[in-house]
C-alpha cells in the first residue's frame, strides 16, 4: 500500500535521513523502532511532506505522491497521529473531532462521533472543553480519535500511547487490532516494545537515519541481542 524508497531529509544543513526504505502492505501492522533521535518522526514527516524530502520516492497504491502538498497526501487516505498530540488548542473537543472529519475509506464501518465517544468516554464528558485545557492523556486520546474520524486507509501513530494510562493503552491496542481486521494498514511508532511485538506483523529498526534491520515479529524474537543492541531493551 505505502512504499518508501531512498527517502532522505534534512533540517537546514543537517541531514537526518539517509535513504530510508520501507513498505506497509494492505491490512498490515508495521512498526518503526529505534532510540531517541534516530529519525523515526522525521521519516513520518517526510512521508507526509511536512518535512520536504531531499530525495526518494513515496508511493501509495502505486501512485507517486511526489511533490504533492501535505493535504493531498492526507486525502490519499493517510491518517496521522502526530508526535506530541498537536490537537487544536482553540477548538473544543467536539470541534477538534468534526473539523477535519472525512470519509476516505470505502467499506468497513466508518468512525462516527458516537463510536469515538464509546471508545473514549472521557472525551464525551469533556465535549465542550477547549483542547488546551485537557489533560495530557485526554489530549492524546483526542489526537487518536481525530485521526480515526478521517477514516483513513493507512493510520500512522507516532508515539500515540505516550502519557496514556495502562488501561487506556490496552484499549488502544485492542482498537488497532480491530482496525487491522477491517483491512486498515497501520504504521506504528511506540516505545512499548512488548506490546508492539504482540500486535505488529513486521518491524523496522532505525539507526542514525537508516533502516538498520527489518523483519517479522518472529525474526525479531529469535535474533538474540537485536533489541538490546538497537534499543537497549
Amino acid at each position, binding site marked *: 500500500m505505502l512504499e518508501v524508497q531512498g527517502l532522505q531529509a534534512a533540517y537546514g544543513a543537517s541531514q537526518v535521513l539517509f535513504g530510508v526504505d520501507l513498505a506497509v502492505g494492505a491490512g498490515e501492522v508495521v512498526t518503526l523502532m529505534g532510540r531517541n533521535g534516530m529519525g523515526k518522526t522525521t521519516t513520518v514527516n517526510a512521508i*507526509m511532506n*511536512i518535512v520536504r524530502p531531499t530525495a526518494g520516492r513515496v508511493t501509495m497504491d502505486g501512485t507517486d505522491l511526489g511533490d504533492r*502538498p*501535505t*493535504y493531498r497526501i*492526507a*486525502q490519499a487516505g493517510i*491518517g*496521522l497521529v*502526530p508526535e506530541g498530540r*498537536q490537537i*487544536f*488548542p*482553540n*477548538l*473544543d473537543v467536539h*470541534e*477538534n473531532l*468534526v*473539523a*477535519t472529519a*472525512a470519509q*476516505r475509506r470505502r467499506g468497513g464501518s466508518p468512525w462516527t462521533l458516537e463510536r469515538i465517544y464509546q471508545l473514549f468516554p472521557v472525551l464525551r464528558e469533556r465535549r465542550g472543553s*477547549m*483542547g*488546551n*485545557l485537557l489533560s495530557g492523556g485526554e489530549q492524546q486520546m483526542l489526537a487518536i480519535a*481525530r*485521526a480515526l474520524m*478521517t477514516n483513513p486507509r493507512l493510520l500512522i501513530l507516532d508515539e500515540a500511547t505516550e502519557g496514556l494510562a495502562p488501561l487506556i493503552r490496552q484499549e488502544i491496542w485492542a482498537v488497532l487490532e480491530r482496525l487491522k481486521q477491517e483491512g486498515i494498514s497501520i504504521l506504528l511508532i511506540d516505545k512499548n516494545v512488548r506490546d508492539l511485538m504482540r500486535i505488529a506483523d513486521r518491524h523496522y529498526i532505525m539507526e542514525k537515519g537508516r533502516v538498520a534491520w527489518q523483519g517479522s515479529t518472529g525474526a525479531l524474537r529469535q535474533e538474540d541481542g537485536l533489541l538490546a543492541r538497537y534499543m537497549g531493551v
Partner: protein
Amino acid sequence: MNSTLVISQLLNGLQLGVLLFLLAAGLTLVLGIMNFVNLAHGSFYMVGAYLCATFTLWLDSFLLGLLLAIPAMLLVGVVTELLVVRHLYRRDHLDQVLASFGLILVFDSTVHMVWGPAGLTFVLPAVLNGQVTVFPGVEFPVYRLLIIAVGLLVALGLYLLVARTRVGMLIRAGAANPVMVGALGVDIKTLFTLVFALGAVLAGIAGMLIAPITEASIGMGKDILIITLVVIIIGGIGSIRGSFIAAMVVGLIDTLGRSYLDDLLKLVLSNQAAETSAPAISSMLIYILMAVILYFRPEGLFPPRSR
C-alpha cells in the same frame, strides 16, 4: 441636555461603530484567527473607497459602483495574500509588521500614481441624500441609517460563519496549527486566502460606504487602522462578537466625547483652554478605555475561549 441632540448623537455613534466593526471584523479574523498582524488592513479601506468612487463616477450609479467594487476588492485581497501575506503566517509578528508597513507604502503610492493626490468625491443618489424622521423631532441622514443596517447584517452573517460552521472551525484550527490541519487533509492555504480576502472585502465595503460622506483620499486608512486595532483589542482578539460590542462602544465614546467634552471641560478650564484641549482629550478617551480594559482584563472583553 437637549434630548433630540442626544438621540442624533447616539445614532451618529452607532453609525461610526458599525463602520469600525466592518473594519474590525476582517482584522480580528486575520489577526486573531490567522495570527497575522496586518497593518495594511486600512489600505483595503482606502482602496475600496477609490474603487467604488471610480466605478460610481464611471457608471454614474452608486449601486453599480458598489457591485463592481466588491469583486474587485476580493481580487485585491486574493492577490495580496498570494504575493505577500501567505509567506508570513508562520513568521513572528515583527516580520509581519514590517511587511505590512511595506504594503501600506505600496498601496498609498499606487493610489497616488493612479488617482493623483487629490482624492475622489462623488455624490449620493437623491434618494439617499436626504433625511428621515427617526423619532418625532429627530431627523437623521438616510444614508447613515443605511450604513447602520448594512453593518448589522454583516455582523450577523459573520457570526454565523465563524461560530456555527465547519469553515469557522477549520480557520481557527488552521490558525493554531496549519501544518496539522494540512496533515489531516484540508487545504488550509486556499482557505486562508479566502478568509484574508473576505477581510479585505469587508474593509473595502467600509471604505465604499464612507466615500460618499467624506471622500476617497490617500492616507484615510492609516488612522482608522489604529482605531480599528483598539477596537479589536478591547473586544478580544479573534472574537467577532467582541469586536462588534467594542466597535459600538468606541463609536459612541468618540462621538459623545466630540459633542459633549468641551462643555464638560468648560466647567473646570477656561473657555479657550477647553476649546483647544477638548478635541485632543476626546481622541484620547478610547486609548484610556483600552488601557483600563487591558489592565483589568489583559485579554480584552471577550477573549476567545483559548489563545
